[in-house]
């Protein structure tokens, strides 16, 4: 009745386990939580839905050791309850942010022979966030993308996607990662649907209901009527939209886009930037690499990569202050953006 969605260390080095189970009622959910607490003996429990409900539930569930538990509850489709259990070394119940790091990169280094491409890169990104990874050419963006997609494997450092370590549990990590590559990855001679089916099979999606799923994915990007067309007949903007629809087909929790607007005209660029921001608002953890400052909004999270190191990590507005991002970027990296 319970399935473990993921478990592992979160960004505060707390052990987290996320469990999904069926519960028709709040009481059912409570019992589920109690069983879970008995099983895992956590110091802190988060069950999320709404803060008010959390407070009420918090009163009713006590940790076996007598410590109060912090709770929030989240009900997704139907009567599914999703619970997050966290245990911190030394009990840091004060962790204000209940959300877990969907994407975690820690102390990642990589070198090509003598050239240090990445040096001790660390960052974490929570769900429901749009993060722009900005860097001039040669800053190490491509290396980072290759490491995140497991084309390269770093001798040092750790990458975790949706809580799964890319090295120890590559299958579960990759199952939670959607990627839009910079280079075209579509078979031009095949139709949109054939391309989507191929991808679905690569990810082991069930064939039953697949066509409906493909239609829904295309429809979200207003591409539904293109399903039967050969990719070769689509323009660049449509191809990118198709690649985006495809990257979301297996419902990943982390979406990685590697300079996705290269070669697109202004309208297509704006459309795809807007759409991906919407996806982030809907809960996806988005990492968008670019060297174009005008694709970054003031409210976006910004990571600046320069010469293989993280130069800045924060909300764009706070990093730049009143200076326009392009000026700030030019000043700090010496590169035109």
């Amino acid at each position, binding site marked *: 009745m319970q399935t473990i969605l993921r478990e592992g260390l979160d960004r505060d080095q707390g052990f987290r386990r996320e469990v999904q189970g069926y519960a028709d009622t709040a009481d059912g959910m409570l019992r589920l939580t109690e069983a879970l607490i008995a099983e895992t003996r956590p110091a802190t429990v988060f069950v999320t839905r709404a803060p008010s409900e959390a407070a009420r539930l918090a009163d009713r569930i006590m940790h076996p050791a007598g410590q109060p538990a912090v709770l929030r509850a989240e009900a997704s489709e139907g009567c599914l309850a999703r619970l997050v259990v966290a245990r911190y070394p030394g009990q840091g119940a004060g962790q204000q942010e209940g959300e877990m790091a969907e994407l975690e990169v820690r102390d990642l280094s990589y070198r090509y022979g003598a050239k240090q491409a990445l040096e001790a890169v660390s960052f974490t990104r929570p769900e429901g966030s749009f993060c722009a990874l900005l860097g001039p050419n040669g800053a190490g963006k491509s290396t980072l993308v290759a490491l995140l*997609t*497991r*084309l*390269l*494997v770093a001798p040092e450092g750790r990458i975790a996607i949706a809580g799964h370590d890319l*090295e120890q549990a*590559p*299958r*579960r*990590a*990759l*199952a939670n*990662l959607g*990627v839009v*590559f910079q*280079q*075209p*990855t579509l*078979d031009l*001679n*095949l139709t949109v649907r*054939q391309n989507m*089916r*191929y*991808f*679905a*099979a*690569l*990810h*082991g999606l069930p*064939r039953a209901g697949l066509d409906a799923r493909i239609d829904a994915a295309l429809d979200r990007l207003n591409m539904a009527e293109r399903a039967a067309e050969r990719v070769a007949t689509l323009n660049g903007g449509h191809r990118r939209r198709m690649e985006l629809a495809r990257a979301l087909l297996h419902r990943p929790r982390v979406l990685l886009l590697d300079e996705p607007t290269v070669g697109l005209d202004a309208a297509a660029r704006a459309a795809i930037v807007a759409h991906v921001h919407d996806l982030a608002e809907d809960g996806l953890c988005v990492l968008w690499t670019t060297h174009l400052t005008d694709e970054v909004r003031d409210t976006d999270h910004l990571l600046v990569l320069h010469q293989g190191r993280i130069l800045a990590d924060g909300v764009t507005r706070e990093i730049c202050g009143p200076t326009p991002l392009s000026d700030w970027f030019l000043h700090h990296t010496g590169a035109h953006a």
Partner: protein
Amino acid sequence: MTGYWGVARAIMGREFLRFVHQRERFLAALVRPLVWLLVFAAGFRAALGLSIIPPYQTYITYETYIVPGLCAMVLLFNGMQSSLSLVYDREMGSMRLLLTSPYPRWWLLVCRLFGATLISVLQVYAFLAIAAVFDITMPLWGYVAVLPGLVLGGLMLGALGLVLSSFITQLENFAGVMNFVIFPMFFLSSALYPLWKMAESSELLRDICAFNPFTHVVELIRFLLYLQINWSALAWVLGTTVVLAAVAIRAYDPSRALMQRKG
């Protein structure tokens, strides 16, 4: 397990669809052996006398002798082309996509090898059909019996291509591979002349040819076309395929230690 099979079917299905849509590629791959068969072999027919050697039971024309070698040549060219395209040209993008699949990398590569082999085998059959039109025929059941030999040979040569693409970064284009791999392999084999003919000019040459795994692909195909099994050729090809595939998978995968653990 269904997921594994689904991946295999999808990768092979994709190769097949791409093949169907690329008629130029198909024709180009057919023209090469046909030129050899209809021009080169016709010219050499008078110059080369062939005695009766297994698996042949009568005197045969040179055209008949050269057919298995040309079948293997189709496999060789295709294997190299498809494996190297993964590394160098537009296929790079689709390979990156392939590798984001959560299935183990060795499985993805094996499926890709089988997919490429499937296409090679189809081309060999097209070649055999055209040869038959020119009255160069084999025993009817030989066309069926040769199938496993073609698949095995295709896998071996595809794996060889993968190994080359992983190790030799200097082979920047197909021309380099042609000069340093395809031509030596093809000419230093029993594809054009039987080994005893080679021995007439030099024992060393014969030994090199006998060591060349491509010779054994050719002989495996030759015997199977006449409904016989050349066990030593089979053992050579099987062994080489296993070794090359293992090396290809290890060399291709930067996280090989991990894959060993994961199986």
